[in-house]
């Protein structure tokens, strides 16, 4: 599926993105450049010029979400009904079949979003080319006349099964036309256009997690494509965190402190399992750790000497050995976007 994209290209960038120069631009009354385009938005597409055998192409602004020409004039257009078309079955579905010969087009976006569903939570990812060049999707368009006589041009993005690299995220992906050959074939070749309808397997397609807040179409701006720290390891054992409560109180506080600074924690995890007396550090690792702790201490105005601090953090060390997933807490807290962590930061699944 592909139902959300970033479309912040300038209108004159579209032909170039699709490997066409010198094309005329028609009705580019596009919406503002948007980081969060969904069906119903005006998006420029590149299509062949009407009624010609020439390779003339134009940029034409159409709404995303196909409204077939045979839709009742009085019907309210529903752009979410057909914003994608399965490339495997465009020859079978009446809505698409008619469009295949003459109404193929290209859609250029900077990237698109896909959600990975894990249990009941969904994590969006932003998928784009490593070098930042626009993605070109294979699409079909149609026109429909409403009861007022207005002609509405709409398009649908073709999908295919996901590439092997993206399979884990979602089982479908848009048909990405990676080079000039592919865009040309889709737009102009009346015989072999089907050869391009396949998953994009090259390794220059990359992705990273973004804020779930972009799931709302009203959420827009560069924040949409800002990489976030994903909340990993939901099965994290935090029983350690709770078992501390039962133990002596004095111990629990410094341990929190250590927890709060992830670098310290990971350092500790790496090396210091069996020798917590880091204050007499000789080798690099130890001094390094030392600095970390002191830095940490200074940062939080811990008014106690360093030795006391390390002594107190001993229980933490033992626990990290058994618990093994300590950094999770902090990471999750950081990851939550509006400062509201979920319960997974505190309880583990049973």
């Amino acid at each position, binding site marked *: 599926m592909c139902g959300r994209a970033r479309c912040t290209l300038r209108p004159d960038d579209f032909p170039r993105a699709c490997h066409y120069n010198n094309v005329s631009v028609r009705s580019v009354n596009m919406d503002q450049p948007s980081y969060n385009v969904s069906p119903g938005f005006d998006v420029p597409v590149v299509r062949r010029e009407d009624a010609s055998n020439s390779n003339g192409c134009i940029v034409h602004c159409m709404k995303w979400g196909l409204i077939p020409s045979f839709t009742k004039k009085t019907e309210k257009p529903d752009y979410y009904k057909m914003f994608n078309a399965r490339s495997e079955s465009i020859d079978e579905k009446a809505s698409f079949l008619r469009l295949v010969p003459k109404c193929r087009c290209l859609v250029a976006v900077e990237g698109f979003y896909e959600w990975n569903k894990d249990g*009941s939570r969904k994590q969006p990812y932003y998928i784009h080319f490593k070098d930042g060049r626009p993605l070109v999707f294979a699409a079909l368009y149609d026109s429909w006349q409403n009861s007022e006589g207005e002609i509405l041009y709409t398009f649908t993005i073709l999908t295919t099964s996901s590439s092997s690299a993206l399979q884990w995220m979602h089982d479908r992906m848009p048909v990405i036309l990676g080079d000039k050959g592919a865009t040309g074939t889709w737009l102009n070749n009346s015989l072999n256009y089907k050869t391009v309808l396949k998953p994009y397997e090259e390794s220059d397609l990359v992705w990273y997690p973004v804020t779930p807040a972009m799931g709302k179409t009203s959420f827009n701006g560069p924040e949409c494509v800002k990489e976030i720290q994903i909340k990993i390891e939901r099965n994290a054992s935090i029983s350690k965190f*709770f078992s501390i409560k039962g133990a002596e109180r004095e111990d629990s506080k410094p341990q929190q402190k250590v927890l709060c600074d992830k670098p310290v924690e990971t350092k500790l995890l790496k090396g210091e399992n069996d020798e917590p007396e880091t204050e007499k550090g000789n080798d690099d690792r130890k001094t390094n750790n030392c600095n970390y702790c002191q830095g940490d201490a200074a940062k*939080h105005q811990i*008014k106690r000497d360093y030795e006391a601090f390390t002594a107190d953090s001993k229980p933490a060390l033992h626990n990290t050995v058994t618990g093994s997933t300590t950094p999770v807490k902090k990471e999750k807290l950081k990851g939550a976007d509006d400062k*509201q962590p979920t*319960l997974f930061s*505190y309880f583990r*699944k049973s």
Partner: protein
Amino acid sequence: MLELRLVQGSLLKKVLEAIKDLVNDANFDCSASGFSLQAMDSSHVALVALLLRSEGFEHYRCDRNISMGMNLNNMSKMLKCAGNEDIVTIKADDGSDTVTFMFESPTQDKISDFEMKLMDIDSEHLGIPEAEYHAIVRMPSSEFARICKDLSSIGDTVVISVTKEGVKFSTRGDIGTANIVCRQNTSVDKPEEATVIEMNEPVSLTFALRYMNSFTKATPLSNTVTISLSNELPVVVEYKIAEMGHVRFYLAPKIEEDEEETKPEV
């Protein structure tokens, strides 16, 4: 075979009213010891844990542990068809994909059967360890509901601070700020009107009022509410169900603007 007969049927209605806004679908787990439920809201920020112990039922038969997935809204619709004085019996056959609610009027002259389809729900059961809390506040549930309602008209979040002085609920919004302090007060005629504060350490935590307000839907279940707070833990808002069990709500605290503030002071 499962058969649970609850004389005070209205209690089940109240339970549903208390949780159905927070959770859409949930698995009810029945075992020999009781009828329970644990579910999170869709954003995984809040959790509800219900326990109705077997002893509280007039008749309790549960041959083997079963988990029944129900849409709480639909269940609530059915339970609303029961009169407040009705005796409610929950029945399910082994391997069946339905559950039956039977309502008997107190005079036994009207008996209704409602059969509801069960659903398959992936439950995300969390292990909630027993914890010692820094502060435990017990207060009249209606008072707590009133505070949450009032504060939510001013701000989105509530800061709950417990000190020796008492418990303070504060909020801040576009129009201004609000602070409500409840002092310990044990010299009341009725014990349920008391405000009791047990505190080992001062705590101050921020929560989304939206959830707190949702929790207060459980107010009809109990005259008092117990709020347990620790600086590093989700708050527990507990409504006891007399002689039967409890409804507990857990809510993850919000992280304050300045992250340093939420770190425990040394």
